[in-house]
């Protein structure tokens, strides 16, 4: 039987390829994701492993708060006296101390050197102990005082050479240092586009504001001493607030942030692969049911020859299985190419991912094949069951109607029930507060799937009214589109072809040809290819071609409209694939709008300063020296910064923020208990908290609260005020204290934002003088309130764009679905098309008829998808506090336009096939 299955697929090559494509894309996404993330992960592992290749033990500062979630707090440092103590131990062969921190390189133009969002790593190097260093010096020499080594990739990209001076900014203002050499990091040329800057220890300590302190000590054991002996010896001299790990443990610890990012990236991308496969399953199911309807006679013949229902079922499933295997293998290979392409893409935008070769794990092969095959086979079950209902008598009688299945009469009711169950699951997951995150996610996932399938099944009931309603919309949107492309495509194409081989006087042909070439030179290439093909082969393109017109063709579109209503189930399934993609796109757009709107409102309410100072990338913390420099601006009325770090209160890790006394003048809060003046009077023990935090921990004004800091100190505080943040949030963490208290308890404090008020408010002169006072800090950026809002939102917008690109994959899959349905429909209606051509339908009318049907399908999908997306978004927004519903009108219009374009593009190929049918042959087609 397997031979028959393969033969049946080969027999219908075009149909098979079109059907399989929908699975190929989904599987490619899955395998591409695995290859990409595995490759990045392996590369990072090798980087971190290399860092500690000759290190037997590493001493680091120990944070009193176990898991450091935010990167705003630098890990605790320790006194460098420890190094001498460690070196004196008899078990220790060699030990070096080092410090590291963010160090921004500044180009000769005074601009910060950044590649995408990659970090700017600064660290001390110890040329006396090259064994500990994973850096290779490739040019020049190791640095002495006031010198720096930088990575070769950065030097190459920016044209920097040994001996040149370069600006380096860390905690303080920019320092000019001499480039003493170029380095590479082990075998990899770059770590994700990060810039590297290596200094002498003393230089680094000055730059990083860590005089007399170390971040890490790396130790090599004396020969003959085991790692465990070394560790226990070191442990004896360790002061409080430090810890020792083996080199390997330290590498794993260092990599943990990266690993969790990679696993997030993996899940994130897999979700979109899953969406594409889900959409693909609709396409497969639909294509198979159409194919099976067309093969009724074949199945009936098999039945008369003694095939049982089970054998028919088996043969269809087997076909799906073979197709699933082929599509999954193709998808797997395409995934490899996709991963390669993504590496190139990231490289092109400056975010070079570490790549030490593509990693193709067996797990990738197993998962990709399994998922692809499973989805195909499951999608084939319903069509296969349909095939078993073909009665043997269909072999001899035309137009046998399949007996309805046992469950057919429950279909509509079942669809409604399924959708309702899906919604209930969503609601339960969203609004039942006692559930864990994973069960909420599972409930929502299952709910959303059920809703999609339910709506898709029920949609066949909606097709007739929706198709009628979409009819005029489809007609006029196509006319509008035709009008737009007419001068750029339709007219020049006609003119060029007429000029090349058409009828008419020589003069008008040459004139037309020149005009056409001027209007669209790209088409000239196409027509020249056609001319040479015409000259070389017996191919004769159709002529006289109809003059391009855009007037709507009522008769053709009316038949197209009728066709779309003729098999509601088919139209519904085809539209359902597009529905899923559009629902998700709408959901994402609506959620983004729901985040942005309250955020802007919150900024408008709280931000009563004139300017904000942030890092160039809008989110990195900036050293307090920036605010100090800004404070010297002429005409400054008030300035206040918000610092941030981790803390622990009531047994939970929280974000602690701190404000300067002048905050009362630049930030305005609504108070539940307390007053604006409290912001300036926090002193050494005052704290403010948000209303919700106060409520959940039963805090009132005067309540004591103690916060544990990463350095191990505990701050005893009293609640001085309780504020009511707007729904869009506030710049504050759970507990906010005074900067003075913060600085006493946190090492190397960093600012999240700085706000300033100047005499005269926002004007060009003030902007310039503020920028002038920040000249030594190229990494700092001055923004007005409006700029600040759009800067902060730009992050959400770029996430939104990434989501759009990923969801576009599922829209492409559904586009293939429409193409497939239309191609199959053209096969099925060959005789009918021949008849209509025979009684006078022109080729153009044939094309328009098909295109109209396609656009109607797309519009139905868009309407269902947008409606569903809005409903789902509404549910989520109702659940989440910081979001409020706002209709993303312009995006929704864009999506509808995209849907029409999908319809138009999907119809191109099937319409050409239909138009090319020879009426005589078509009439004889069986």
């Amino acid at each position: 039987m397997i031979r028959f299955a393969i033969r049946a697929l080969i027999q219908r090559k075009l149909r098979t390829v079109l059907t399989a494509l929908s699975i190929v894309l989904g599987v490619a996404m899955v395998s591409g994701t695995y290859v990409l993330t595995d490759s990045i992960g392996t590369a990072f592992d090798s980087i971190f492993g290399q860092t500690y290749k000759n290190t037997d033990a590493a001493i680091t500062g120990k944070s009193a708060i176990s898991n450091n979630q935010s990167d705003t707090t630098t890990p605790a440092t320790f006194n460098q006296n420890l190094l001498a103590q460690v070196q004196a131990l008899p078990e220790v062969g060699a030990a070096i101390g080092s410090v590291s921190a963010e160090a921004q390189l500044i180009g000769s133009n005074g601009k910060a050197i950044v590649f995408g969002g990659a970090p700017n790593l600064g660290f001390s190097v110890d040329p006396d102990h090259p064994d500990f260093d994973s850096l290779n010096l490739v040019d020049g020499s190791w640095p002495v005082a006031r010198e720096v080594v930088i990575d070769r990739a950065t030097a190459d990209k920016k044209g920097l050479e040994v001996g040149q001076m370069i600006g380096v900014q860390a905690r303080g203002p920019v320092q000019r240092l001499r480039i003493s050499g170029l380095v590479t990091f082990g075998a990899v040329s770059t770590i994700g586009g990060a810039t590297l800057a290596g200094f002498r220890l003393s230089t680094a300590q000055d730059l990083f504001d860590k005089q007399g302190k170390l971040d890490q000590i790396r130790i090599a054991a004396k020969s003959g001493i085991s790692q465990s002996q070394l560790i226990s010896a070191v442990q004896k001299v360790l002061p409080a607030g430090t810890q020792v790990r083996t080199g390997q443990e330290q590498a794993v610890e260092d990599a943990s942030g990266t690993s969790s990012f990679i696993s997030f990236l993996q899940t994130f991308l897999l979700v979109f692969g899953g969406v594409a496969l889900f959409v693909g399953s609709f396409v497969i199911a639909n294509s198979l049911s159409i194919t099976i309807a067309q093969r009724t006679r074949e199945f009936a013949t098999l039945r008369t020859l003694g095939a049982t229902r089970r054998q028919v079922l088996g043969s269809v499933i087997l076909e799906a299985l073979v197709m699933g295997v082929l599509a999954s293998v193709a998808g797997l290979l395409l995934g490899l190419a996709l991963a390669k392409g993504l590496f190139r893409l990231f490289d092109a935008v400056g975010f070079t991912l570490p790549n030490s070769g593509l990693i193709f794990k067996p797990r990738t092969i197993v998962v990709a094949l399994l998922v692809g095959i499973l989805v195909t086979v499951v999608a084939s079950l319903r069509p296969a069951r349909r095939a078993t209902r073909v009665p043997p008598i269909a072999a001899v009688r035309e137009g046998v109607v399949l007996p309805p299945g046992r469950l057919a009469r429950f279909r509509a009711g079942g669809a409604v029930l399924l959708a309702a169950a899906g919604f209930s699951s969503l609601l339960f997951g969203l609004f039942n507060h006692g559930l864990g995150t994973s069960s909420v996610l599972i409930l929502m996932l299952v709910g959303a799937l059920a809703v999609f399938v339910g709506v898709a099944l029920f949609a066949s009931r909606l097709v007739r009214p929706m198709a009628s309603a979409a009819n005029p919309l489809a007609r006029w949107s196509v006319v509008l589109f035709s009008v737009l492309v007419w001068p750029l495509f339709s007219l020049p194409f006609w003119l060029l072809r007429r000029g090349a081989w058409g009828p008419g006087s020589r003069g008008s042909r040459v004139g037309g040809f020149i005009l056409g070439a001027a209007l669209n030179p790209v088409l000239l290439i196409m027509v020249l290819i056609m001319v040479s093909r015409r000259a070389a082969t017996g191919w004769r393109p159709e002529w006289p071609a109809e003059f391009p017109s855009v007037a709507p063709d009522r008769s053709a579109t009316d038949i197209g409209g009728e066709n779309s209503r003729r098999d509601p189930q088919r139209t519904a399934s085809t539209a359902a694939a597009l529905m899923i993609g559009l629902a998700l796109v709408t959901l994402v757009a609506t959620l983004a709008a729901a985040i942005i709107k309250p955020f802007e409102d919150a900024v408008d309410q709280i931000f009563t300063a004139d300017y904000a100072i942030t890092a160039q990338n809008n989110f990195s913390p900036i050293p307090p020296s920036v605010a100090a420099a800004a404070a010297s601006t002429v005409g400054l009325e008030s300035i206040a910064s918000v610092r941030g770090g981790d803390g622990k209160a009531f047994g939970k890790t929280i974000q602690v923020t701190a404000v300067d006394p002048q905050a009362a003048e630049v930030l305005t809060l609504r108070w539940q208990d307390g007053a604006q003046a409290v912001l300036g009077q926090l002193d050494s023990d005052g704290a403010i908290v948000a209303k919700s935090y106060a409520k959940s921990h039963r805090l009132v004004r005067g309540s004591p609260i103690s916060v544990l800091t990463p350095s191990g100190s505990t701050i005893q505080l009293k609640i001085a005020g309780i504020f009511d943040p707007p729904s869009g949030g506030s710049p504050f963490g759970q507990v906010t204290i005074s900067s003075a208290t913060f600085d006493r308890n946190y090492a190397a404090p960093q600012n999240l934002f700085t706000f300033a008020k100047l005499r005269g408010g926002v004007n060009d002169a003030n902007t310039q003088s503020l920028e002038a006072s920040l000249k030594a800090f190229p990494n700092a950026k001055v923004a007005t309130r409006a700029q600040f809002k759009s800067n902060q939102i730009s992050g959400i917008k770029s996430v939104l764009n990434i989501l759009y690109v990923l969801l576009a994959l599922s829209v492409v899959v559904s586009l293939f679905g429409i193409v497939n349905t239309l191609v199959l429909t053209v096969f099925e209606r060959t005789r009918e098309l021949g008849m209509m051509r025979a009684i006078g339908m022109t080729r153009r009318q044939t094309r328009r008829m098909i295109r109209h049907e396609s656009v109607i399908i797309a519009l139905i999908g868009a309407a269902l998808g947008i409606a569903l997306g809005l409903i789902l978004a509404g549910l989520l927004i109702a659940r989440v506090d910081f979001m409020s519903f706002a209709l993303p009108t312009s995006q929704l219009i864009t999506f509808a336009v995209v849907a029409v374009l999908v319809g138009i593009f999907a119809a191109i190929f099937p319409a050409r096939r239909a138009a090319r049918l020879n009426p005589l042959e078509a009439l004889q087609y069986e």
Partner: protein
Amino acid sequence: MSASPSNVVVANGITRQFGEGDTSVHALRGIDVCIPSGELTAVMGPSGSGKSTLMHILAGLDKPTAGSVHIAGTEITALGDTELTKLRRRHIGFIFQFFNLLPMLTARENVLLPLTIAGAKPGPGWFDELIGRVGLTDRLTHRPAELSGGQQQRVAIARALVSRPSVVFADEPTGNLDSTTSGEILALMRSSVEEYGQTTVMVTHDANAAAMADRVLFLADGQIVQELPRSSPRDILLAIEKLGIR
């Protein structure tokens, strides 16, 4: 009439009604018929006479509204789908007007299809003998699309015979062929009856085809109106004229 071993197919009191109420059509109105073993029986009648419906019911493709059908001693009207399918494998072969070959299979695979489906193999020498008989020896690797109409019908005949069924039903086997080819196909069917003793029921409205039969049944308005033994085309045409059914 009884289900004696010499009668492969026995039908009693067959009626078949399509639709219900005012729009109902009585396609068959009480038909009793026996198909004796080793004979070629032709069923003739004008369009709408019920001849195709009769064949569908005799072959178990359709169920009668009333009456019983025995094939090789088994009452089939009450059989479930699986039992009927099993019976079809053992006892029934089909030849169709439009050949109904599977387009993706070669001639050889098409011929062997009933055995493949049943998980069986042809007896030694039988396949070669059959292919030689229908004259397809050098066409075995061709696909249906590469064969002429006559060749396709030869494949279909070999397919019907390959499992040596108790009875072969042929539905207008020459209806889609030109007259020369028709003659060849009919001769082939006749020879299968004579050489292999293949019981065959053939529905046709071609007098030349009916003239090959050992017995000709005439149907009109759902009833058997006349029966002729082996006759010449002339006699058959005369009978049709007399009945006024053409």
